[in-house]
């Protein structure tokens, strides 16, 4: 699954710090979702890099910013979605379906 900017806007707004772009935009750092956890639970990237999530659980999951500024939408088993982080900052996010699943992204200049 590759989110478009339009889909992201429709999902709840587009933050200045993060946007979904085509996969070719930049290399992605992959975060696995397995056994109801984000792995790794903290990722450090540089501005302009993407995070790609892949769900390995049967249960659907999301990666959703705490303030809802970005959201991957529902990821079924084997599905992926990526988000581009354009500006430095720290993003805390969780699974909207299983809120105990929490993780963090640190974006540096």
């Amino acid at each position: 699954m590759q989110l478009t900017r339009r889909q992201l806007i429709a999902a709840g707004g587009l933050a200045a710090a993060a946007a979904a772009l085509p996969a070719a935009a930049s290399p992605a750092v992959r975060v696995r979702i397995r056994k109801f956890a984000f792995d790794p639970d903290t990722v450090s990237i540089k501005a302009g890099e993407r995070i790609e999530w892949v769900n390995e659980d049967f249960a659907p999951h999301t990666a959703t910013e705490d303030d809802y500024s970005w959201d991957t939408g529902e990821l079924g088993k084997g599905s992926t979605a990526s988000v581009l982080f354009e500006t430095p900052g720290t993003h805390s996010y969780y699974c909207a379906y299983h809120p105990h699943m929490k993780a963090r992204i640190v974006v540096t200049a």
Partner: protein
Amino acid sequence: MTFRLLSAAVLAGAMVLPAHAAEPMNDLEIAHTAYTAGQLDIRYAHLALAVSENADVRSFAETMIRDHSAVNSAAVDLITELNVTPQDNDLSRALVQGAADKRAELMGLSGSAFDCAYAQNELGYHQVVNKTVEESFIPAVTVAPLKELLTDALATFKVHEGHAEQMVSNLQCS
């Protein structure tokens, strides 16, 4: 052992064990029972969505529908791939009957009484199903893909058990 473990606690005396309760279940019977248990929890969840006005209870119910549907969809994919037919059995039938009785009981409730009864049933249901899957079904299954599916499903069900425990605590049921 499998039959006794699951039925005794889940159904809380609502049924009588058949004479062959201790007979081991085969892979197709285990697959049928595991699928049935998921479907029954989905039905409990739909009832909760129809009755409860509590946001946490409704959120839990939505999660049960989403997660159990995903697991059961994977189960259907597997049995289709293996070209086999799960076998109905006494344990599946007992679960269906026990759940029907429990739903009838829940439908007579409303408000916090319903929320507490639903939450406590979810906790008890997941506790016993998880114990049965972990200690009886997974060790007994002989087909590797089914064992793998049950193992992955158990990870999901254990999260549900923890979530249900938290829900019961938050509702402050007496």
